[in-house]
């Protein structure tokens, strides 16, 4: 199977892998996030976006740089830094686009028509302040640091693209979506503030827990591990708030598809965030590091949690923006189940493969021997990947049809959807 594609450098695994990571992080999640921010912030501020023209410019800039990423990364034009592979020009483009998005949103919020700042806005404001900075620090495009210092900054960035961008914007979206979808007020404003400050305080220093077993300073590892464990505080606060908001309304997930995506996302968030501090501790890290367990964990965060909440946001907001119901409710269901089951299979197979690898490393078994033992799990992982991709294709088809079908044709599905909901 590794010889399925040969002699095509663009399809070699490492090139696909670096494009995969960047397409997910910079393409799918970041673009989706910015889109959701552009929808949610004016809604919460009860005014228009500060500059729709600027919004359009950033959208085109972002799409252009994704084309650039596609062309460069698949040919191996990389900086060789994980999560920061993009070349110098693209790095600068992302930074400029992020600053412009931040400017747009800050001005929108400053000109808002409601006095109160809802917690979602706190999250968006915070994220748009610190993520451009994290991005600029993390790229190291124009500096050549000594190896281990490079690694320290690299993991500061590598973990905070998750912690200070995907998590904070994602949680902000959960705060927006859950009360709207359930038609219920948020359980506690105080808890939401505690969760926000907890994340702001404890997330940023955790990066070094990725290299706890390398010769970097011990005090830095200690800071990283302690703050990783402290992260349980904001996570449990946030989830308590969500689950108490959901209280008595759990049945709604049966019929309400966006809510089902959102609730699944919260559940996966719980699992990820309990796993994270657990595997950041020295002795668990001793055993689990370098294995597919960590890959499973990363997918749990980016696919299980933040992709699901982003999908929920799209399913919620698209009909509101276009004024049309989705083309097919059946396709939404199919999307949900393919993604959910596919991801569950992926999580299980990667976790088991990771445990086999861990045992191999711990017992000193050579790689080429345990490598044979995990082959069945690579197989299951491929199947799960196909399921997820299929689900995303249905999603894309559904969105396409919703946007580009003449209104007359959408009447029937609309009626059908209403029927299903009732």
């Amino acid at each position: 199977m590794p010889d399925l594609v040969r002699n095509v450098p663009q399809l070699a695994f490492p090139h696909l892998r670096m494009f995969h990571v960047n397409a997910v992080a910079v393409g799918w999640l970041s673009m989706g996030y910015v889109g959701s921010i552009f929808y949610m912030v004016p809604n919460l501020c009860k005014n228009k976006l500060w500059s729709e023209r600027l919004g359009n410019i950033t959208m085109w800039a972002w799409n252009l740089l994704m084309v650039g990423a596609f062309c460069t990364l698949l040919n191996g034009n990389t900086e060789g830094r994980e999560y920061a592979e993009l070349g110098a020009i693209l790095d600068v483009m992302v930074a400029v686009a992020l600053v412009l998005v931040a400017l747009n949103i800050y001005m929108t919020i400053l000109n808002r028509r409601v006095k109160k700042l809802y917690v979602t806005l706190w999250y968006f404001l915070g994220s748009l302040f610190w993520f451009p900075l994290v991005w600029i620090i993390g790229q190291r495009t124009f500096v050549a640091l000594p190896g281990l210092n490079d690694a320290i900054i690299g993991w500061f960035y590598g973990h905070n693209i998750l912690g200070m961008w995907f998590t904070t914007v994602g949680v902000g979206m959960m705060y927006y979506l859950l009360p709207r979808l359930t038609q219920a007020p948020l359980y506690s404003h105080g808890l939401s503030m505690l969760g926000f400050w907890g994340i702001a305080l404890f997330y940023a220093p955790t990066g070094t827990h990725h290299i706890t077993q390398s010769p970097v300073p011990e005090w830095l590892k200690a800071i990283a591990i302690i703050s990783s464990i402290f992260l349980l505080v904001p996570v449990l606060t946030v989830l308590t708030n969500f689950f108490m908001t959901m209280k008595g309304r759990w049945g709604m997930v049966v019929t309400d598809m966006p809510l089902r995506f959102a609730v699944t996302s919260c559940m996966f968030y719980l699992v990820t965030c309990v796993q994270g501090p657990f595997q950041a501790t020295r002795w668990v890290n001793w055993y689990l590091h370098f294995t597919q367990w960590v890959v499973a964990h990363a997918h749990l965060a980016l696919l299980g949690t933040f992709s699901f909440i982003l999908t929920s946001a799209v399913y919620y907001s698209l009909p509101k923006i276009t004024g049309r119901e989705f083309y097919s409710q059946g396709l939404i269901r199919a999307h949900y189940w393919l993604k959910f089951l596919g991801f569950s299979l992926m999580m299980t197979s990667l976790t088991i493969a990771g445990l086999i690898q861990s045992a191999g490393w711990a017992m000193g078994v050579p790689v080429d021997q345990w490598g044979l033992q995990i082959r069945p799990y690579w197989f299951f992982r491929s199947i799960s990947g196909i399921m997820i991709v299929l689900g995303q294709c249905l999603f894309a088809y559904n969105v396409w049809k919703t946007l580009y079908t003449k209104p007359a044709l959408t009447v029937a599905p609309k009626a059908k959807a209403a029927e299903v909901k009732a």
Partner: protein
Amino acid sequence: MHSYRLGAIGIVVTFFVIIFSTVLLPMVLFNPKPNDRSNDYSKIDKKIADAERGRKIYVREGCFYCHTQFTRLQDRGYGPLVKAGDYVWETPHQLGTARTGPDLTNEGERMASEWQKAHLINPRSVKPGSIMPSFSYLSGRDMNDLVAYLQCLGNRREVKHFVEAPDEYLTTTPAGMALHNRKTVDTAASASANAGRGIYTQNCAVCHGLEGYGNGPNATALEKKPPNFSRPYYKQYSDEMWFYRTSEGVVGTRMPRWAETLTEEQRWYVVAYLKTLPQNQEVTINSLDQLNKIEDIRLPKLSNQQYEPHHGGHGGHDTPADGDNMGPSEHQMPGSGSTSTPTTKTGTSTESGSTTGNGAEHKEGGH
């Protein structure tokens, strides 16, 4: 508006404090000095192949997604442990995050360059079952440079000793330092060796033999025979190596992890004793018959009463022992067998009374 201003200031201050402590502070405080162990890319003549350019190929092809470049304490057998100074010239760092393939920290010169090349072109031709993708699309020059780079990895981290304990036991690591700070036993002192002999006799002699020839009575039943410590090979063992072996046992054999049952102090005493084992004899064992002539360990006959401590250890000789192996000598206390004449040389070297039995018992010993 004022309440929000406070919050906004809070966010900014918090963020900059964190940036300061985890980004700027390490840059200021952590400046490892370059040492003489980092990879030497100039080793291969640039006219033949350019290893520094090979590093760029390594980066370009994304090898670090599956191969790491740092050895951890527990990665035994992957060559010398890396130190902070090894990485000063390594930028962008290639530490890696996952090991879908083996660690490459000390890969240099392990395999012939032709092997590396064949492996890159068709991994499964030299490593059956490998899942590494083929890099056959690399040009001849790229391939040569990449192989040159691989051959330079760890080429200055030389293995200094023929046999050495893992770094956790050496003073070069924090764990090893802590171990040595806890150590109270002088392993060179004969008093320590004396203390260790008792522990050795009780725990080790049953397989290793009283003098470490590997001919204890249990050795006959073992598939993997205990080693012969009188061989010159074992004389190069450092204290740490002995301690490591004693503590962790030998995987794949019946040698247990004594760290589970003996204290650190006891294990250091054993080490002190092991170092005094005979050094001048080289016994070559050519057939199992030689080995199966086990040495005699004469255990005392114990009566049932002696098994039961509440009757008193000394009560055994007062009451006649009931049961099977009767004899006049039965009533002698272990250790009081001054009449016994040890028949083998090894018998004399034992110190405790419990193993220097009497002649009568020796007669029943099955020989």
